[in-house]
């Protein structure tokens, strides 16, 4: 029931349109990129999926994270802007339930977005690389992988948005985190496991290497950690927020 209510709350906030249009905008990048200079791509001796991901994933991942930041801000802005959350807290309803339903919504939005992007990647591959065996399964695996890699970003960002009454603060923090991720993602230290740096990882045709599995484990651990953190917060900060 809570989920249905949360879904209703997103009405006219532009939450789903944002993801849909954002996905279309992001998907147009690989198409334009490949169409503009096909020569620099088609002669590479790599599977089609790899070429496309190598060339575009940095941009796509960045746009995806931007959208998750914005989505989280929208979800909690409707609560804070006119005091809706105070009313919610006066009702016999679990605060954690509200949070995790919102997380599910955000996951749904992200999933839709990734799916649309994958479809366009498949289109690019079919159009410019007619002979690409195993393409569908590779792209599909990458979609699932990316969704899991987005999970810590989703939960962390929602956590931030739920803690800041002022949307500007959560937005600023989100962008700063994304920026930090940009700075640390190429370092070879533990910092590559920084939550906002994870979505920049993608699955190439070589499949699960040890490294990729480590990233996956990190993503899941971080998600659980942030989730537990939220539950603890609601427990100990009952009278504030």
């Amino acid at each position: 029931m809570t989920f249905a209510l949360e879904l209703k709350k997103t009405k006219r906030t532009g939450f789903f349109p944002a993801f849909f249009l954002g996905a279309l905008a992001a998907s147009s990048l690989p198409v334009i990129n490949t169409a503009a200079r096909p020569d620099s791509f088609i002669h590479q001796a790599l599977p089609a999926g790899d070429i496309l991901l190598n060339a575009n994933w940095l941009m796509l991942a960045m746009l995806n994270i931007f959208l998750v930041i914005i989505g989280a801000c929208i979800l909690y802005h409707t609560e804070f802007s006119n005091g809706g959350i105070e009313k919610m807290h006066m009702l016999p309803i679990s605060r954690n339930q509200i949070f995790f339903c919102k997380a599910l919504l955000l996951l749904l939005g992200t999933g839709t977005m990734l799916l649309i992007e994958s479809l366009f990647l498949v289109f690019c591959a079919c159009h410019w690389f007619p002979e690409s065996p195993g393409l569908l399964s590779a792209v599909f695996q990458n979609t699932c992988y990316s969704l899991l890699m987005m999970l810590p970003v989703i939960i962390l960002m929602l956590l931030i948005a739920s803690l800041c009454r002022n949307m500007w603060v959560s937005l600023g923090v989100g962008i700063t985190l994304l920026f930090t991720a940009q700075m640390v993602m190429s370092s070879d230290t533990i910092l590559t496991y920084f939550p906002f740096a994870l979505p920049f990882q993608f699955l190439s045709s070589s499949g699960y290497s040890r490294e990729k599995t480590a990233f996956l484990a990190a993503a899941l651990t971080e998600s659980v950690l942030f989730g537990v953190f939220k539950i603890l917060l609601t427990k100990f900060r009952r009278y504030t927020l």
Partner: protein
Amino acid sequence: MNLFSLIKIELIKIRRTHIFCLMIIPCLLLWLPSVLNADMNFNNPSGLSPENSFFIQGFMGFAWILFPALLVVITVMLNQIERTNKGLQKMLSLPVSIPMLCLAKFFVLLLLAGGLILIMLALYYPAAALASAKMDYDFLLSGSLVFKESLLIYLCSVPMAAFYWLIAGCIRTPVFSIGIGLASIVPSVLVMNTKVWFAYPMCYPFYTIAKLMGSLADGKNFISIDLIPWLPVAAGFTLICILLSCLLFGNSERR
């Protein structure tokens, strides 16, 4: 009421908005990993000298995302100051010229952008000094190069700022104006490698720094960018954006 006194009024309005915190913290975050990873500058693949590499790496991160992203946020924030408590409605019922008001606000945006560059510069020197002390190597570059490049980035950002100003004025839902602004940053990596880079103002700052990197790697100390058709396109773009935003300013408050 002339433009100058209007700008003064607009500057009063940004008091206590924490806009400076918003500008300083990301810049600090930018230089921190640079100093920590200072040793990476010694094996630079593009053949830059370590001190040049240190400078370019920092400013490249700045020019690519941080600077445009902060400009977007500042622009929307400036608009929200007017909208949250209907301050703009009061302004519109006062005897001021509305396009002038819009222009004054745009100048405040440019002033803040300038402030951002100054913060970046002010942090570069201590960061370079720290890295020098850490690695026992002189990372400090001559002032003229650093200042020239900063000035260039600043000038290049004017068309971009005008574009964001237009977006923030037209799209009333703050989340969406931010969204469009941020989304417009990402393709600059793509566009700047094409022949029509000058048609996409969001990539100007990034383009100049990439050019500088190229010429520094070649051992030159200056950058050569074709001013035609860049300058006319940039100027035209800026003018159109400012004109449109002045015309549209406050329209939704006067339905």
